[in-house]
């Protein structure tokens, strides 16, 4: 990359803004956020715990989706708009399967093996779908101007939404509740239920496995190399096309797993849910530092906590009407003032 050499100096006012005032504003915002949380915690601790537990659970799901954005962005520098809709179709497939198999939450071992089977099916479905999308819509545009694949991604997202709309109709599809919802433990009178724990028990191993895959395996090394410099890795004997396909495959699998968890935990899904959640997850990926895998999960947690606190707290809270706006405001602020995210490094090649 030669960007280093041709970077033009910013105007002095801009530089001064960036240098002093912006960190100050950032610190002020964070301080206000902390103050808001602390006051609310003191006023209504039980509510705070309840929302915290909801936030952590949602955060795990957002994190899984955000990982898909991060992986793809890391390797292709493409915002894969269709990712959220792949997740949505996965959720719809789960909804269909739960109804067809006639599962209920009292079937014990059968239930768990069926959930595992569904997980495998939906992950495979989403992985193949995502790889196909890459093959059809993005591969030909690898050398086109950068906005061209972004536009096809929006197109694919619309197509998938339309498929979801035609498949399940414009109303939310409800999924029979099959996860056990008994209490695991109680903090301050707030029960922590099994379904929330199961979401975490799914997410953590997936994240660990993904990190191991990217950092320890040969394939992961190929992915990192391709992300850093496609031409050079091709010269080193890495099959770039296959590596990119593999990345999309993994990302799709993560979207499928998230779709399963979402459908079973939230118990309803709608055709435009994928787009909405996709934007939230993309924000999460940006907050954590796009391309950074632990960052994506951290970003998911942060966004989900903010969302859940904003929906439920009472003191000086804008309320659920504004949640979407707040999330986008965070996205805009992060992109404008700290585009490398919370965990991102300020290096030119940061994957």
């Amino acid at each position, binding site marked *: 990359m030669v960007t280093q050499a041709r970077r033009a100096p910013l105007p002095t006012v801009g530089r001064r803004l960036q240098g002093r005032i912006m960190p100050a504003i950032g610190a002020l915002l964070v301080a206000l956020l902390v103050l808001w949380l602390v006051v609310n915690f003191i006023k209504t601790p039980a509510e705070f715990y309840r929302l915290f537990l909801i936030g952590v659970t949602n955060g795990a799901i957002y994190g899984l989706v955000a990982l898909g954005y991060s992986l793809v962005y890391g390797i292709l520098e493409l915002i894969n708009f269709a990712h959220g809709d792949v997740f949505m179709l996965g959720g719809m497939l789960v909804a269909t399967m739960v109804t067809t198999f006639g599962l209920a939450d009292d079937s014990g071992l059968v239930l768990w093996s069926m959930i595992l089977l569904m997980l495998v099916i939906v992950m495979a479905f989403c992985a193949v779908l995502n790889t196909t999308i890459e093959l059809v819509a993005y591969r030909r545009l690898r050398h086109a101007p950068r906005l*061209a694949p972004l536009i096809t991604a929006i197109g694919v997202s619309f197509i998938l939404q339309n498929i979801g709309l035609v498949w399940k109709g414009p109303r939310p599809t409800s999924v029979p509740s099959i996860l056990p919802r008994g209490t695991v433990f109680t903090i301050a009178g707030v029960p922590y239920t099994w379904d929330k724990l199961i979401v975490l028990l799914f997410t953590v191993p997936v994240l660990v496995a993904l990190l191991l895959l990217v950092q320890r395996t040969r394939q992961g090394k190929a992915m990192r190399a391709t992300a850093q410099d496609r031409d050079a890795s091709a010269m080193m004997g890495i099959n770039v096309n296959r590596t990119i396909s593999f990345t999309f495959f993994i990302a799709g699998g993560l979207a499928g797993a998230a779709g399963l968890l979402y459908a079973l935990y939230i118990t309803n899904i709608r055709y435009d849910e994928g787009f909405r959640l996709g934007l939230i997850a993309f924000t999460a990926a940006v907050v954590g530092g796009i391309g950074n895998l632990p960052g994506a999960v951290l970003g998911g947690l942060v966004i989900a906590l903010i969302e859940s606190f904003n929906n439920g707290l009472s003191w000086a809270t804008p309320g659920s*009407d504004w949640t979407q706006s707040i999330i*986008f405001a965070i996205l*805009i602020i992060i992109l404008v003032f700290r585009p490398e995210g919370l965990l991102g490094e300020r290096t030119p090649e940061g994957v």
Partner: protein
Amino acid sequence: MSSTANRRSEWRSQVSETLRFDAIRAQWRRLPRRVRGAALPTIVIALAFLYPYYRTWLPDIPIFGDVPTVDTGVTMLIYMMMAIGLNIVVGYAGLLDLGYVAFYAMGAYTAAWFASPHFENVHVHAGAIGVNPKAAGFHVSIWLVVVVAGILSAIAGILIGLPTLRLRGDYLAIVTLGFGEIMPQIARNGDNLFGTGFNLTNGAQGINPIDPPGFGATLNRWLGLPEDFLTVSNGINFFYWTALVLLLFTVFCSVRLRDSRLGRAWIAIREDETAAAAMGVPLMRTKTWAYAAGAFFGGIAGAYYAAFKSGTFPDDFFFNISVFILCMVILGGMGNVWGVLVGGGFLAYLNQEGLGNIGQEINKNLGTNIDVPLYQFGIFGVILVVMMLFRPQGLIPSERRKMEFEEGVADEPLYDVRHAPDG
């Protein structure tokens, strides 16, 4: 590759041999150049103006059914205006704006604020038509409101652009998408802004009625122009002609802007930001002007559409509309005004009545029962994907844009977000 090119040129020469009207051509060439250049636009504009009169005599189009109604025509013209506005941002300056609907909303709500009984505590009347002189709220003449809406939208464009235009292309797209999503939410929740009880947008009900356009009693007496579009018998025709005049104004401005110093700077930035900056093009200022100009026409279109529908509702301003307008620009050909006009008109028509007609036709002939308008956004998605894959320059490309897509451009911008300037 070369064999197809040969075949194509052979075919072309055959066609031109059989279709050579030499005598007519020679006569035509004798006319002065200015006459020749003005002929086609004059004919097209005249045909467009007379459309309400000869519409009923036109035969049905196969598959598409009836020709568009004048009502649909108004909507088509307004969408064409928006497409031309977006074309300034996306086509000329090469900045992908996924939140264009924000400016449209800004224009619509400006019309709703300044030409409706919405604000109950004020009584301001300034040339509004067809309103009880004692009615509450701002009632400014709709012609003035349209201009004000354009200016306010342009200001909104500058405000959005100033912090964000430093970002790289795809990040900019996401940020504009964010603004485009925040705008309708403000519209939906604006009936009680921040708990103060101040009703800015009347929430989900939207604001209506908006005062109708019209020329007032004086102009009616002197020039015979209609006093009030809603009360005259052929009011829809006047809506149509007004939209056409606004569109012509937009096209004129757009073409003149493209050929101006500013327009050439936009194209330079689109092709190679670094080279443009090295040649002394002020990047930020030039891009912000592109935003402001695009927003201006979006605002005008939004205000006029609100006046046409006599109301504005927050559910009209979803992301779908931004992509719909983007689709028009891409289908027609980014950067080419004429292509964008065709793309905008065609897609707006499809959206308004074309898809329904096609569905009826298909169901009638094949005995099926497909709800074609249900596939509306899937169809737009397919258009986006297919165009980008196989004809990124659009159906009617601008020569220059086509070359860029074939040869590629230096797409590595100067202010790359990943290389934060203080890092």
